[in-house]
């Protein structure tokens, strides 16, 4: 295959990752739904070992992190990196090997968890025998997507690539540390300190850089203007790199982890909030004068809603990480609400926004229904905001009941209405994602027959939007020149 007829981006691959992401998204949402039914004492499969609520909860979190979010972000990597570098990924065959390997890994992890081989690491419940394969899969992915960046290593890189390339170092280090150190080497409080690092770094040094890297790429393209301030981009990236990993211990406040590490975690968590503020300012200044687009442009709407929720969740974090609030809210549903706002309200929103933008380009057909897209957006927003506030209040109530030495059962009885509301909010989200998937399906089908006929042309056809692809390059070279 000569380079003249090979397009920069393998669209079928990007599409495949997005479809896989959605398959795991449904698994994750159903698992979350089941677990919330357990808390509402309405579990449909009581006493069934392989569908035990405890195991299903791990399917929920792992399918979200590794199945949905990472598949979505991998699609973003394959779409963005070749465009920003002007180079292809290392190998198309390898891309497909990584694709199938990754799905197999996530499916095996889910199977292992259901069969009772889970590991006792939060966000890393992947059975210990799957861990080396996760690392191998990540290494192949990094080799594949990292090569084009390596090929332009002497140039100044665009912001997106700072985040992506740093992530390629952080992901394997984080995963190896979190899954091996507390499991095999360090017991007790020391292991907990490392677990805290892992929980935090997986979100902060893998998901977050991927998410922001994506934002720095798509937002300027859609707005057709460069990011407002290059300096703030630098502050945002280096601030994240420096402060974010120092936060880990804040997952185990008031535990037997030495207190100086806990104080350090408080301070650095607050520092992260300042960094986040600079990034948010940068993006909202980029939007200045064009806020009307939030109404007409759905991808942009998903992105900026996600950013508002990101700011909310980080601001919340700066408060909840104080030792004062920790007395009440630690161990409660407050933190669960926080986690849902981050993982769904921010990063899932960004991936959904990206799909909203990419899907017509990937299928070659306009969206089947804009009404469905809009409905999905509002239902997701409604669902996650209701769930967030519901769990927030539940957390405070639980915290005070515990502190006031009410019988433990009282905290369950009082939580029940909150848990029911959460189930309803979750149902709305599930319905929204069903609408979204139906819309994707119908859009793909619209073009279906034509695309099958033109299998050859889809390989040979040049990229259809060189103009848009050119935008961030110009932005980056403009920035690099400044």
């Amino acid at each position, binding site marked *: 295959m000569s380079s003249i007829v090979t397009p920069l981006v393998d669209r079928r691959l990007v599409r495949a990752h997005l479809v896989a992401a959605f398959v795991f998204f449904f698994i994750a949402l159903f698992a979350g739904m089941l677990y919330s039914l*357990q808390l509402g004492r309405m*579990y449909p499969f009581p*006493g069934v070992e392989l569908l*035990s*609520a*405890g*195991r299903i*909860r791990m399917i929920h979190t792992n399918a979200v992190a590794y199945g949905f979010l990472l598949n979505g972000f991998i699609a973003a990597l394959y779409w963005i990196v070749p465009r920003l570098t002007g180079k292809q990924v290392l190998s198309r065959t390898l891309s497909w090997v990584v694709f199938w390997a990754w799905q197999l890994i996530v499916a095996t992890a889910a199977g292992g968890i259901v069969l*009772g081989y*889970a590991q*006792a690491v*939060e966000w890393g419940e992947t059975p210990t025998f799957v861990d080396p394969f996760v690392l191998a899969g990540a290494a192949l992915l990094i080799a594949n997507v990292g090569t084009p*960046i*390596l090929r332009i*290593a*002497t140039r*100044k*890189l665009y912001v997106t690539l*700072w985040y992506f*390339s*740093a992530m390629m*170092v952080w992901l394997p*280090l984080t995963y190896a*540390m979190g899954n091996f150190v507390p499991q*095999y*080497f360090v*017991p*007790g409080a*020391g*292991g*907990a*300190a490392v*677990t805290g*690092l892992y929980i935090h*770094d997986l979100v902060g*040094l893998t998901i977050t850089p991927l998410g922001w890297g994506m934002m720095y790429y798509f937002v300027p393209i859609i707005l057709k203007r460069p990011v407002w301030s290059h300096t703030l981009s630098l502050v945002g990236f280096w601030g994240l790199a*420096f402060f974010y*990993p*120092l936060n*880990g*211990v804040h*997952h185990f*406040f*008031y*535990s037997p982890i*030495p207190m*100086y*590490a806990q104080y350090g*975690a408080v301070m650095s968590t607050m520092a992260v909030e300042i960094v986040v503020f600079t990034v948010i300012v940068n993006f909202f200044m980029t939007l200045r004068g064009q806020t009307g687009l939030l109404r007409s442009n759905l991808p942009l709407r998903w992105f900026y809603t996600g950013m508002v929720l990101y700011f909310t969740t980080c601001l919340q974090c700066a408060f909840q990480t104080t030792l004062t609030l920790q*007395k009440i809210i*630690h*161990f*409660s549903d407050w933190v*669960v609400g926080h986690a849902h706002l981050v993982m769904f309200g921010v990063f899932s929103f960004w991936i959904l926004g990206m799909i909203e933008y990419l899907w017509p380009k990937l299928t070659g057909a306009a969206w089947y229904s804009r009404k469905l897209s809009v409905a999905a957006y509002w239902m997701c927003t409604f669902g996650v905001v209701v769930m967030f506030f519901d769990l927030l209040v539940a957390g405070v109530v639980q915290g005070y009941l515990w*502190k006031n*030495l009410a019988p*433990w*059962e009282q905290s*369950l*009885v009082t939580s029940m209405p909150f848990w029911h509301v959460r189930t309803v909010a979750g149902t709305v989200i599930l319905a929204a994602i069903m609408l979204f998937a139906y819309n994707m399906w119908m859009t793909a089908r619209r073009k279906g027959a034509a695309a099958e006929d033109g299998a050859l042309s889809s390989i040979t056809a040049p990229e259809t939007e060189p103009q848009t692809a050119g935008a961030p390059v110009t932005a980056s070279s403009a920035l690099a020149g400044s």
Partner: protein
Amino acid sequence: MEKLPVILLAAGIGCFALAGVVTGYLPLAHLSRIEVKKLEEIVTEPSYEFTDLSRRYPEAFKKHYGEPTVENYRRALRLGRDVYIAEACWHCHSQYVRPVSSEDRRFGKVSYAAEYMNEMFLPHLFGTRRVGPDLIREAGRHGNDWHVAHFYEPTMVVPTSVMPRYTWFFDGDQPNEKGLAMVTYMQWLGSWATPEAIAREEASRAKAE
């Protein structure tokens, strides 16, 4: 600041390593002054509850564990810990008592680093959420029968419980190997820090002085 080598080395490796040292290595080095013990060193005789299980469920106990010896007790503890992990009990039950929020009055002695420095807390099971109560001071809080009933159908003993049923811990109406292990493990958690254990330790220390 915008070139690949700087990003990979300074942000990728440098910042990660700094955090690893400050929030990982320093606490680890600090805690490593406490010796990490094997189960054989901290458990030298079968617990009362383990022996009690052999009397309450003689057939099941005989079949799965034989005699209530210390070796079998350790085997039950290790299996109990593994089942606790497989069922992800730690997602709804924490294993540390904080020095705030009246927790010492609800659960017992505030957790301290040394009690976790043994193989049973590799991996640690601190947990981050409490749907149910903390379990690190669970030993002796309920009887064996309570635990058996509770695993089979939690609402039989706690009507408002939201805990799942663990019917696969049972063969018919008798606890099986997993069930006996789980009860044994529950009755071990914090057995070194019950009020009686603390009183015993203080008495022996006073005698030594």
